[in-house]
């Protein structure tokens, strides 16, 4: 053995670090319209290419092209644009609120708005999302109250979660939005379980699990794929690949595999990659996968290729680990601008109307914020009671907690 050259450890590195010139030349972007659209009962093996390509609908000229195009009316697209703009404005205001000390923490969606906003529109009432902290678009596109979102963020007296949860960890069963966990990935297998329950009860509702590129390394991701594959659960398993997991580039979680979608191939689960910054493409793929699930053909794994433009959270500063201008170099553009340009091209939108919509939306968000702030912010005004801290641990408070509540004098 002594004649063997020594081993060495391979540690993947991103192409560029701060100081370097952003470089996405390794990200191969197929032309819009170039990826075929299979039947929903397709044999997964026969579409394995789709795990290595990117389904795109909007081309550089803002046209919707190819087999995945043509599913949404202009009206629906205008509504989608409004959802994304609302989310972006909401984020901007809440980031500011956090900086002003009105809450402890915030997480934004900049660049990823299309993913959750478009996906939501492909669901039916009664379906259930198991989201991470970066899919508030699911709520906004479902018409959830901005004031209630803010009440949660401010942990104020109207907080639907009574101050118990950190900002942005919303819950809305009514709108098909499962209570968000602070622990990464746990929701992925739960989504599969929920979907199995729907199948056990011979229901028609389906589930959607959500996970980030980084969190696919967690155990729950594997459990979800195993269970979904075995029981053919009616679930759409969504991976939002925004290139970063806090400071860690996606190559650390992805390792030697070409894509995250490829993970599905080892389970016989059809796996699709889609341009996450293309509202039309996201919607088209979501609809395909959701229909597959609803028609009892089983799970689909979808990777959304996108980019986290902002910091991971208000506790993070990406300048420490990636070039400042990296997001400008991101080859898939901005989802809001791309949809806007498409609508302008279709003649149903204009720069002027966009400006006006921006103003209206800001107005709406500001009004909501005023209302929410009227119910308190984290350190000022109305807040949930100390009693609320003791309630809800169990359906009925057991004696030991009653004693503790008494000790606390509440």
């Amino acid at each position, binding site marked *: 053995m002594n004649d063997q050259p020594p081993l060495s450890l391979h540690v993947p590195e991103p192409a560029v670090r701060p100081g370097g010139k952003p470089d996405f030349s390794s990200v191969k972007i197929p032309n819009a319209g170039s990826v075929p659209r299979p039947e929903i009962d397709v044999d997964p093996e026969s579409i394995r290419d789709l795990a290595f390509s990117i389904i795109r609908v909007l081309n550089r000229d803002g046209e919707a092209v190819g087999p995945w195009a043509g599913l949404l009316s202009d009206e629906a697209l205008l509504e989608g644009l409004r959802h994304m703009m609302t989310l972006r404005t909401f984020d901007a205001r809440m980031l500011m609120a956090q900086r002003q000390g009105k809450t402890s923490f915030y997480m934004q969606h900049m660049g990823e708005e299309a993913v959750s906003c478009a996906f939501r529109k492909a669901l039916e009432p009664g379906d*259930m999302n198991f989201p991470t902290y970066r899919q508030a678009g699911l709520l906004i596109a479902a018409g959830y109250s901005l004031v209630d979102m803010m009440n949660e963020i401010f942990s104020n007296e109207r907080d*639907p*979660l009574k101050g118990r949860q950190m900002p942005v960890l919303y819950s809305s069963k009514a709108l098909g939005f499962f209570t968000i966990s602070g622990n990464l990935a746990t929701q992925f297998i739960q989504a599969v379980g929920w979907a199995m329950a*729907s199948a056990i009860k011979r229901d028609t509702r389906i589930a959607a699990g959500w996970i980030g590129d980084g969190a696919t390394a967690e155990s729950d991701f594997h459990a979800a794929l195993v269970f979904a594959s075995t029981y053919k659960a009616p679930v759409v398993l969504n991976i939002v690949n925004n290139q970063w997991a806090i400071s860690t580039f996606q190559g650390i979680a992805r390792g030697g595999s070409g894509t995250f979608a490829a993970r599905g191939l080892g389970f016989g689960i059809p796996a699709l990659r889609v341009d996450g910054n293309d509202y039309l493409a996201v919607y088209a793929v979501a609809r395909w996968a959701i229909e597959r699930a609803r028609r009892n053909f089983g799970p689909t794994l979808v990777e959304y290729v996108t980019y986290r433009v902002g910091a991971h959270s208000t506790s993070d500063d990406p300048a420490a680990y990636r070039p400042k201008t990296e997001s400008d170099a991101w080859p898939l553009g901005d989802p809001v601008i791309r949809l806007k340009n498409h609508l302008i091209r279709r003649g149903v939108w204009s720069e002027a109307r966009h400006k006006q919509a921006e103003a209206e939306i800001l107005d709406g968000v500001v009004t909501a914020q005023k209302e929410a702030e009227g119910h308190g912010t984290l350190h000022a005004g109305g807040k949930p009671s100390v009693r609320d801290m003791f309630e809800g*641990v169990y359906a009925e408070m057991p004696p030991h907690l009653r004693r503790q509540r008494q000790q606390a004098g509440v």
Partner: protein
Amino acid sequence: MPRKTMVEAIRDGMDVMMERDDNVVIFGEDVGYFGGVFRATQGLQAKYGKSRCFDTPISELGIVGAAIGMAAYGLRPCVEVQFADYMYPAYDQIVSEAARLRYRSNGDFTCPLVVRMPTGGGISGGQTHSQSPEALFTHVSGLKTVVPSNPKDAKGLLIASIEDPDPVIFLEPKRLYNGPFDGHHDRPITPWSKHELGEVPEGHYRVPLGQAVIRREGAALTVLAYGTMVYVAMAAAAETGVDAEIIDLRSLLPLDLEAIVASVRKTGRCVIVHEATLTSGFGAELSALVQENCFFELEAPVRRVTGWDTPYPHAQEWDYFPGPERVGRAFLEVVSGDQ
């Protein structure tokens, strides 16, 4: 009344609930066609079909994680972890998820879930088929933890657990499956068919969570026990002649503190027995509670007799197990004041 083993009683509890409520589903490793390595689910798949009782991949995380999703949907899953020693891969889902869904969502989502798992040693199972991890559950707000000691209670507690709106960890002392084992491993075991508590009522009944029961009244000493150790304590009392009052806790959380305090106030002395390792075992909590609540009545230190702080060994199993001799010695020391 028919006599049943503890396994039969547990199966009966699931059967009754599956019959009454088609939201009750049962799954786990080998629990479907085969009926579980301890045969607790035997016949349930044949009776209720494959979508209500089925085999799973070997992933405790997957079993509990999927069950949480189902519970959130509105089912009442009652899942099996093959041995408590194998619950660790599911621990995150239990602690971070099942236990907190209700709280974190302010009741928007809930988790009516039972996780059954055989616990305890005495079957030559070595360090990975013998553990008693109850204290790892009692520390977690949002969980309930139950340990039956006989067929009748097992069925009634299991029914109450399945009906409970919150997650319940249901620990089954496997050494009691066939009979009330008192720690005398070298003697033949009395089967449940010869024991009064092997009489299991038919149909639906509940043993409410949070109510202890006195198994032996006595004046000299209070013994806090659960599961297998109830019988070890009974044997120790009989063999030492110490007039011990033996309380079978049945549910560790919620805990019947009132029953404990009433007894210790009466006897002035307390011995706590469990099979789990000593340090940070549930006995520590019991000891703390007893002295917090009965300080002025206590005539001797509260004493713990437990498994040692080592992994559960294979060959030295009976040296590890806190048997009647060791427990009895503690009784005598505590009543004599000879510490």
